[in-house]
């Protein structure tokens, strides 16, 4: 028998009673997203995201590779999301559970399939050379909200990352080092933000399917404990331009279409807030780095005077 986290009846009924009164265990309101703490690394494309106790690190890297034969004008973009037991003893090495599969597919769909990264701009020589961008997501600590946190991490990383500048002459490619030429940023077309909702059904399945009451409760950004008790889950990826990039409600508690629309709109508000937070952070980082260059180049460098 697999050993996992056992949730007692007492906890379950307590959480349900609390939700009915609009209280969550960590004191948030039902529709509150946890505070997102994003740290950018010294290197380009290293992002550390903390969402409550959840911690995710994304690292973007680039190399030159050959494009797929059927898509000669496009570069490559891969997102690697392997969840190791480092995050939580829930996850096992070498074996992917259903949840893990849905997590990595959701990240993949939100970030890659929605065309957040302009793949055509990664083409160097059609059919033979292109940039291959790789996003490695590492899950360091788990307290719910992996999809949301890793989406933020990857999208911030892509905007923060700079790839080396190159010059193409015929079939020859010269890669310039960072010291030689200012590295160039990736062309990110839009910033999808994932928001995960969890559904709770306080009145039993029969009421949910046959009843008219629609008393199902939905909450935003679950912690691990809430995650274990949820009856259904919905992930919405939406960007600032009011475009829904991905919706995934893979089974679970049937929910009224209008409630789902409400979730979409809530997700949009949260996405706008988060996009602005990321933008501000990147601007601050840019300013800090450029000040650094001017500091290095300025005439009145601190000189060591030998007496």
């Amino acid at each position: 028998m697999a050993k996992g986290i056992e949730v007692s009846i007492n906890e379950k009924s307590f959480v349900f009673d609390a939700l009915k009164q609009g209280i969550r265990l960590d004191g948030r309101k039902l529709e509150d997203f946890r505070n997102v703490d994003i740290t950018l690394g010294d290197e380009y494309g290293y992002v550390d995201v903390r969402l409550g106790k959840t911690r995710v690190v994304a690292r973007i890297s680039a190399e030159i590779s050959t494009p797929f034969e059927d898509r000669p004008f496009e570069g490559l973009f891969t997102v690697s999301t392997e969840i190791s037991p480092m995050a939580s003893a829930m996850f096992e090495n070498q074996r992917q559970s259903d949840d893990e599969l849905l997590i990595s597919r959701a990240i993949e769909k939100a970030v890659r399939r929605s065309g957040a990264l302009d793949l055509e701009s990664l083409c160097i020589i059609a059919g033979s050379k292109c940039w291959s961008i790789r996003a490695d997501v590492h899950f360091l600590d788990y307290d719910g909200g992996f999809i949301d946190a890793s989406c933020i991490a990857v999208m911030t990383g892509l905007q923060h990352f700079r790839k080396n500048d190159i010059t193409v002459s015929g079939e020859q490619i010269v890669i310039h080092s960072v010291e030689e030429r200012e590295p160039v940023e990736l062309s990110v077309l839009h910033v999808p933000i994932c928001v995960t909702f969890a559904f709770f059904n306080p009145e039993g399945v029969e009421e949910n399917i046959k009843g008219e009451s629609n008393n199902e409760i939905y909450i935003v950004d679950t912690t691990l404990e809430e995650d274990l008790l949820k009856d259904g889950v919905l992930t919405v990826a939406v960007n600032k331009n009011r475009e829904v990039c991905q919706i995934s409600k893979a089974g679970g508690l049937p929910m009224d279409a209008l409630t789902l629309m409400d979730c979409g709109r809530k997700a949009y508000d949260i996405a706008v807030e988060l996009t602005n937070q990321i933008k501000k952070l990147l601007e601050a980082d840019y300013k800090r780095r450029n000040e650094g260059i001017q500091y290095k180049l300025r005439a009145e460098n601190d000189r060591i005077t030998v007496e």
Partner: protein
Amino acid sequence: MSRFEIYSPEGLRVDGRRWNELRRFECRINTHPDSSDGSSYVEQGNSKVICIVNGPMEPSSKAEMSTSKATLKISLNVTPFSSIDRKKRSKNERRIQEIVTSLKRTFEQSIIVNKYPRTTISITLHVLALDGGLLSSITNAITLALIDAGIAMYDYISSVSAGFYNNTPLLDLNQLEESDVSFLTIGVVGKSEKLALLLLENKIPLDQLESVLAIAIAGGHRIRDLMDKEVRRHGDLRLSKLANK
């Protein structure tokens, strides 16, 4: 962009349908009465799916057993000859696995699983031809096969896809449309407006989502009626045989 006109100014689609028209929906239940406990065959346009249900039966290994409810086992086989490019699709492909997981979680809610503790319900699917609407035709086939197997369910789950193109929602897309139009697939519970399943993989403007969902739900209800008709037809057939004896 494709050479085809997805939605002509006259309001016609590539295959001549209007925006709110379903494709031809044909279904049969009890197609494999000897080899299975429940079976069905669904044609949604040119997509053709066979579904076979066995169970509730004793699980093959104890690890799969749950003491409180039935476990669902779904195996999805997209045949290599189902699509034009004859690509061999492995069962371990992540997209297929995601579909399987989604279906499992959908039907775990609509089957009264706690009626069958310590058992497995095994669902096998074969996609014979694929012309768009993979997830929706599979979902409908499973619903019918489960009904045929006599497994207790709360209600029908009827599924259909709907897309959004040039300010018009389009119902039930075929393969050609799917490659150009962003679309979503829903699973509606019975005649309600409740969604058991909702998957969207491309971009749709948030403000248009409601109109797309509305047409999809209407389409889902229509499919539910068609499935119900087939179930009742089959029921009458059996009843008449019974009366003859």
